[in-house]
């Protein structure tokens, strides 16, 4: 046992690790607090002390989480499905960047994202290596509850808890031990409302939000409250949400955004795009000036389609478009 908890008094332990008091109370051992002068070993057996020691380890890690900020992630190429070396030998993605990932089904997009999530060390089928801030990362990125490198947002996700928006955000903030939760909840709610266009109240149950509102809340919540420095987005449907602003929010909260998409507008919104095929990164391209100009035209087309959708919804005919 690293801390020799058995030799310390209750008072000393509480003074040094204040969160222990709550942990003991949660485990039905709250009465220990009534005898501050007693040694902890009088109440807890070796296994319990060991558990508590582990809990303190984790909490110390957790509370120190902000000290080492992830500013970039580097993927070193491995091998393709046929065993040939990966054409892109190295890819570094930095905080504030949006990287699009494109490629046919089965081309290896999921494996690339899984390699990042698992912080591969040449020990996955692709042989890739992933480093964080140029260093071979700690095991904690693989196995702990709070250090997950990648947060995910996908079209299939739903809220399943029967809570209001406010209760829901509170619960999340609590589990993240967030500082200043009220301010964070306000910020999430404001942003989600801006993204969704159709406002919702803090006391709306999360399960009755519309598709666009849910997506907006998920994005704003992930941006503000998720500990993961990388956000993986699996398409953002072009309905009921301002996609450019969604990306802006994630960037502003210093996330690295990886986006698997086949939507031309989303793909051109990225800073770079990675082409995946045959299980390997084939090349990395930046949008050209021409593509950027086309983005304007694509947006106009998109708006036109949205307009037609709206007219359909209103019961109109589409004889004239």
């Amino acid at each position, binding site marked *: 046992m690293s801390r020799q908890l058995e030799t310390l008094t209750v008072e000393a332990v509480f003074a040094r690790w204040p969160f222990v008091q709550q942990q003991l109370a*949660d485990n039905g051992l709250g009465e220990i607090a009534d005898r501050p002068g007693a040694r902890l070993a009088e109440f807890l057996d070796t296994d319990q002390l060991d*558990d508590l020691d*582990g*809990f303190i*380890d*984790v909490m110390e890690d957790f509370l120190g989480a902000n000290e080492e900020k992830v500013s970039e992630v580097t993927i070193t190429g491995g091998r393709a499905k046929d065993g040939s070396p990966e054409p892109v030998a190295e890819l570094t993605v930095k905080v504030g960047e949006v990287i699009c990932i494109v490629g046919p089904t089965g081309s290896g997009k*999921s494996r690339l994202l*899984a390699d990042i999530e*698992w912080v591969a060390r040449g*020990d*996955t*089928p692709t042989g890739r290596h992933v480093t964080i801030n140029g260093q071979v990362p700690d095991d904690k990125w*693989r*196995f*702990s*509850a*709070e250090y*997950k490198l990648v*947060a*995910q*947002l*996908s079209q*299939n*996700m*739903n*809220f*399943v*808890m029967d809570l209001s928006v406010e209760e*829901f*955000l509170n*619960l*999340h903030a609590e*589990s*993240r031990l967030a500082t200043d939760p009220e301010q964070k909840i306000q910020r999430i709610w404001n942003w989600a409302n801006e993204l969704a266009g159709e406002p919702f109240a803090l006391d709306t149950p999360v399960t009755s939000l519309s598709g666009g509102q*849910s997506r907006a809340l*998920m994005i704003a*919540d*992930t941006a503000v*409250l*998720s*500990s993961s420095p990388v956000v993986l987005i699996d398409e953002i449907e072009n309905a009921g949400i301002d996609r450019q602003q969604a990306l802006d929010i994630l960037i502003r909260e210093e996330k690295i955004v990886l986006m698997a998409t086949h939507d031309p507008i989303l793909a051109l919104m990225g800073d770079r795009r990675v082409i995946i095929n045959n299980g390997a990164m084939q090349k990395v391209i930046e949008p050209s000036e021409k593509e950027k100009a086309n983005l304007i035209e694509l947006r106009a087309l998109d708006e036109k389609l949205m307009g037609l959708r709206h007219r359909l919804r209103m019961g109109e005919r589409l004889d004239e478009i």
Partner: protein
Amino acid sequence: MRFVTVSGPPSSGKTAVILKTLEHLQKAGQKVGVVKFDCLFTDDDELYRKNGIAVRKGLAGALCPDHYFVSNVEECVQWGLQEGLDVLVSESAGLCNRCSPHIREVLAICVIDNLSGTGTPKKIGPMLKAADVVVITKGDIVSQAEREVFASRVHMVNTKARILHVNGITGQGSFELSTLWTGAEETATVEGKKLRFSMPAALCSYCLGETRIGSDYQMGNVRKMDLDLPTGFKTDGGPQELGPMDTGGES
């Protein structure tokens, strides 16, 4: 042989996780097997067999499933060794929440799903608390926030376990889990090893607090599986009446 015990509430995705994880080991040329424990009925053995996995099943019937498990686990390990398996997995379903099939010095996995509600990690107790690795499933259909809240609840119950997210449908995360299985300790026998948690009371020696494994320690209502049924023999897999009858095995 590496032996892994897998537990988890019903429908949490144990079988899917095991199938996906073993697939990686099979690809690497390893011989793998599963012993499936259940209460009244299971046809998961068919699924395993279809995937080229050696399998035995044991149905506890009217016996307490936890006691049934511990009364048979050594014989299962010996069966796995005879079969020349590299990895043997025991899958326990139908355990009560008071219980845990996890054995000291044997890699213990608990599978629990995001849809089961944030109260569940506290409710299921020993099988989660005593696990080395907690696998969280169904993360693809709930929000990131709910995943984080759920993982933190798991973490509060078991501060030491490694927590992995595995998708039982796409297999995402199963490769990573498989590396932990191949890294497990070798097990030649579980005779004399101890359960991590004593079992709840029923009607045999284990009801009296026995935690040691092996026939020498078993008294009272103990029922042995028949692991040696002839090839092609098929049982109906139905529940058995209370009594010292053989059940469940097929090949």
